[in-house]
């Protein structure tokens, strides 16, 4: 039972001041085993804050990040799942499923987490899943101002992933979940 927090596109301090208070009160240290961040934090203080949540932190570089040494893409294995991480501004058209699927095949991962669009989406593509956790602060994106703060918590348990989607809609935290089972026969295309 591994808890993985996926978030990104905070744009602190340029576009947002901080995470919403209701999110912050839920994110306490000690519960989460891994944190993956799609990028665009943008400053070191946010990095330090995420580090306090969990020492195992993975970040990829977004176009506004002030830390230049984050990688463009990252892959990690948690339990039986391979996760891939990328900010997403490199993949055009932004947010397009087929292009992201290409990236997924390239990285050879089961779950690809990207951001940049500031909209939560979760797509299934062939044997894998593409998740966009949205913007955790609700910062405006290159495309739209209408952004709800959201992030994703994945509960990885053997061959099953339960994805909990936390969204702040009208000041209330709404939680949904998505179930995904990895089929045991995984043939790379």
């Amino acid at each position, binding site marked *: *039972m591994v*808890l993985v927090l996926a978030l990104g596109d905070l744009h602190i301090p340029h576009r947002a001041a901080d995470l919403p208070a209701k999110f912050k*009160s*839920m*994110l*306490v240290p*000690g*519960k989460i085993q891994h944190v993956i961040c799609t990028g665009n934090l943008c400053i070191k203080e946010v990095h330090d804050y995420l580090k306090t949540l969990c020492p195992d932190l993975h970040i990829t570089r977004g176009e506004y990040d002030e830390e230049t040494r984050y990688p463009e893409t990252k892959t990690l294995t948690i339990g039986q799942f391979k996760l891939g991480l990328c900010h997403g501004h490199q993949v055009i058209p932004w947010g397009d*499923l087929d292009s992201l699927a290409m990236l997924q095949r390239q990285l050879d991962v089961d779950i690809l987490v990207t951001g940049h669009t500031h909209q939560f*989406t*979760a*797509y*299934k*593509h*062939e044997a894998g*899943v593409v998740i966009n956790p949205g913007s955790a602060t609700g910062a405006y994106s290159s495309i739209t101002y209408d952004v709800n703060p959201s992030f994703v*918590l994945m*509960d990885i*348990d053997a061959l*099953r992933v*339960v994805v*909990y*989607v*936390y969204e702040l809609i009208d000041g209330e935290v709404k*939680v*949904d*979940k*998505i*179930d*995904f*089972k990895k*089929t045991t026969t995984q043939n790379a295309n």
Partner: protein
Amino acid sequence: MVNKRVPDWLNSSLWSSPGPQPSVQSPSPTPATLNDDDDATNRSTRSATKSSTATVNSVKAGGSASGGEFPVERTGPMPSAPAVIRAENRHVPTRAKAETRDPLSSSSNYHSDEENGSSAGSTTSASAAAAISSAEDISRQAQLCQELSRKIINMGEVRRLASQGIPDGAGIRATVWKLLLGYLPTEKALWPTELAKKRSQYKHFKEELLMNPSEITRKLEKSVILDDEGTVIADKGELPRSEITQGEHPLSLGKNSIWNQFFQDTEIIEQIDRDVKRTHPDLHFFSGDTPFAKSNQDSLRNILIVFAKLNPGIRYVQGMNEILAPLFYVFRNDPNEENAASAEADTFFCFVELLSGFRDHFCQQLDNSVVGIRSTITKLSQFLKEHDEELWRHLEMTTKVNPQFYAFRWITLLLTQEFNFPDSLLIWDTLLSDPEGPLETLLRVCCAMLIIVRRRLLAGDFTSNLKLLQNYPSTNISHLLYVANKLRAKLG
């Protein structure tokens, strides 16, 4: 008020050199081995002189107490209060007997653990010294076996025999302890059904309480989720979002959320984990990297976690692992394969039973109440005052050694930390065989511990007395239990 002198029986030379010279009558029911009433007497007198010097060495060597000699002196046919003299004999001249092959093989259980452990230099003396039992030991073993083979077990008889020590020979300690703790009913025919019932009950507890929240949520929604998602959803496209039940998500801060409770329990589980890893680091049974040790540690963990979850009032307190360890050790080393495999379940229930008398010692709020640890320590103090006022006065008034400094650990941990492992098993034989519960016997044994070192205590000041009592010196266990028993007889 008369100033009570030290009673004469206490002042006799008996106490300076352990190992009295009894006149032995062995009432053994096994005539085959016993052409040696005289031999037993001779042996014991020989051993008495030897043992005074030998005891210290051999005790330090960690030899098992169980295989020693127990010449018995019966002063009367009272089954309830036998006066026993046990001279622990470690350097017995080698008298190979037919029956000793059993003690040798089963006490080798102890020895392999102890020898592999960190107690250095124990190998030669332990193997030479401990494996030979006397006529009385064998007779008691035979009597116990006989009792256990009856259809309806006479608990009084079993208690009486057990209070003198359970020999290792027939591997019966596990069964006797289970009987003494009330886990097994006295009617032997009921044993299989009782055991099966309790074991399955424990299995249910484990399944319920040791599940993590992911599994719980999965179980709750088994009916809702379509199992074969692959075929229902198209290969490509949006994943369906489903609602969560009752706000149950991992970051939930609600009091009733299973996730929240899980994370709160994590603290206790971490504490239990730490203590389990530190239990008896010198015994290979409990510590080390072998899969056996790991599985034993896991069993201890599970038992303590289940106990903590089932008893939210007391949860887990440091020290419970020490009380659990001997129980689990004995049950796991049961020669009966089936029993050894289900040791975890049996230990759990016996642990609950054993702890039921002592729970209040672990509850901090009850510390100052009538049932708490302070009042028990006061009882001990009173006890000492009644039996040996001079020592009591010296300890409490003159040197101001507050009994809490030493007796706390003695009482809460049932003396497991004061003696080496096999000795504490012997002490537990006597403790558990008390029909009114172990507490009275425990207090008597503690009092005996004080009385035995009275010379050193009377001569010492605060620092030296405290040091002595907090690192209680190795001593002849049978002697200790004899004194404890005498204390009972004194007050009637």
